[in-house]
């Protein structure tokens, strides 16, 4: 074996694996969505788009991401700043902050179900405080905005940790000298945050926002756990078409929509938060 071949040999399993189980299936999705028995057809896409749930599912999915991601960004920035300034108990607090990282969206949905269901803890608290006389059905179909709120809370609760972890590791890469220089020139803590931390954090912000926004478009189990099918989202509809309606062509058309908005979001963040060449650490 020549030494030149060694790296390729080491990469071979991973490359083959990704080509067979990642690249090929995505081509397959596109084909499933636009082909029928007689070759190319837009029929599946039309079936999807003309179904009454399509627009609402698309709308709720995008609204959910648009509400959740900015709140998570602000929270994660605050949490990361807190962590970097901690002197005592840093590792314990860091562990607590990153606990939700290991939780699935289904588990998060069930956790918040314990709070929001009719005999749940929110109702118990409101009853105990004398605000309500009998438990309210928060998660019923007539309260779609309460379901939305519960999903937003569960998503923020679960998935802010991942953004925080990325930002904390990004903040660790910013040289201390920059802050010292800022202090010498009389910059306040807030000014240092705006003028040093945020611009230097751009690559991390980019990674975190892309990762988080894409995951927000894939929201599924948390919605199912809290609202069943009352609050339609794209991934839930994909699942419905694949399973209940047994039509994998329309399910693939849905998958293409999720793929399209994911790519659009990725390009958007790559462009808006682009890192000038040679400016990386």
């Amino acid at each position, binding site marked *: 074996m020549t030494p030149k071949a060694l790296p390729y040999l080491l990469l071979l399993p991973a490359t083959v694996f*990704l080509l067979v189980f990642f690249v090929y299936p995505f081509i397959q999705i596109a084909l499933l969505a636009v082909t029928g028995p007689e070759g190319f057809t837009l029929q599946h896409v039309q079936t999807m788009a003309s179904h009454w749930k399509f627009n609402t599912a698309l709308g709720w999915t995008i609204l959910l991401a648009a509400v959740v991601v900015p709140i998570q960004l602000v929270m994660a920035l605050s949490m990361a700043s807190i962590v970097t300034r901690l002197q005592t108990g840093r590792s314990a607090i860091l562990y607590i902050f990153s606990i939700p990282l290991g939780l699935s969206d*289904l588990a998060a949905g069930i956790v918040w179900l314990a709070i929001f269901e009719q*005999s749940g803890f929110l109702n118990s608290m409101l009853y105990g405080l004398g605000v309500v006389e009998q438990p309210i059905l928060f998660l019923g179909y007539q309260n779609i905005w309460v379901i939305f709120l519960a999903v937003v809370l569960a998503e923020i609760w679960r998935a802010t940790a991942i953004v925080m972890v990325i930002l904390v590791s990004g903040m660790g890469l910013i040289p201390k000298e920059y802050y010292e220089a800022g202090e010498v020139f009389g910059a306040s803590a807030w000014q240092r945050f705006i003028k040093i931390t945020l611009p230097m954090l751009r690559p991390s912000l980019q990674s975190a926002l892309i990762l988080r926004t894409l995951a927000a478009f894939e929201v599924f189990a948390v919605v199912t756990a809290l609202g069943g099918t009352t609050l339609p989202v794209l991934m839930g509809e994909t699942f419905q078409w694949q399973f209940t309606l047994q039509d994998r062509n329309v399910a693939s058309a849905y998958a293409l929509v999720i793929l399209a908005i994911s790519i659009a979001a990725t390009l958007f963040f790559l462009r808006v938060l682009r890192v000038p060449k040679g400016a990386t650490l």
Partner: protein
Amino acid sequence: MTATVENNTPKAVETARSAGRFLFIAAVVLICAWVLVPIYLLMVNTLSSPQEVTGFPKTGIPSFDFSSIQFFISFAGVAKALWNSVLVAVLTMILSIGIGAPAGYALSRFDFPGKEAFRMLVVMTRAFPLPLLALPLAVLFIRSGLDDTAIGLAIVHTVLAIPFAVLITFSLFSGIPLELEEAAWTLGCNRWQAFQKVVLPLVLPGIAASAVFAFTISWNEVFAAAVLTIENRTLPAFLVQNLNVSPLHLKFAGGAAMVIPALIFIFAVRKYLFAMWGIANR
């Protein structure tokens, strides 16, 4: 864990002169509560009897009644789902490290044409909604007899875990100076012996951490598991399929069964969390 915060408080208050310091501590306590209280409430429900779970109003204090847990464990299909979850997660762990670690080593030690293309392939996986892979793979698996098997699902979960396995092992191997390996070569080791005797012992804890991370990814995955399994459901797939028909105490006990291992996993890999993500920025 909150106890640590409270223990620190008196000492910190002594030194705190400003309101800013107080606000800072308040924020820390508040965020810890935000993370921990919902988990606590889930545990309260899990440790209450089915009657208490559906009862109202709730006290928020567990009665340490184990009948909900007993009901969950003896419920038809749960034991098998738990076993399937563990099996798929272990297979995912083996596959993703077995395939990902050699790639990570190659990226950290060699410069060769095509390196950038491979990196792009790995980075690209993160720009795609991966659970959707389950849709076309369902067809492929039926043709090849992999449908409804643990290994079939583990393959999809490995696609999810492999970018992390490659990036984490890359950063681990990059942290070991090449000189160490070269010293072993001059002392008569061949490449494999040097790797085995010098590099491997140093990276083993990190490899274990990334294996645990792969396990967690598989343990938590819902969508692909629900699409690809019918008889051999994993725990999340089992729960999500039965959500609208299962009683509340089954849901909460199931939720706790998913959360508790996750707490342990994150505790086990906490040291490596930041190394993993630091590298992801480059």
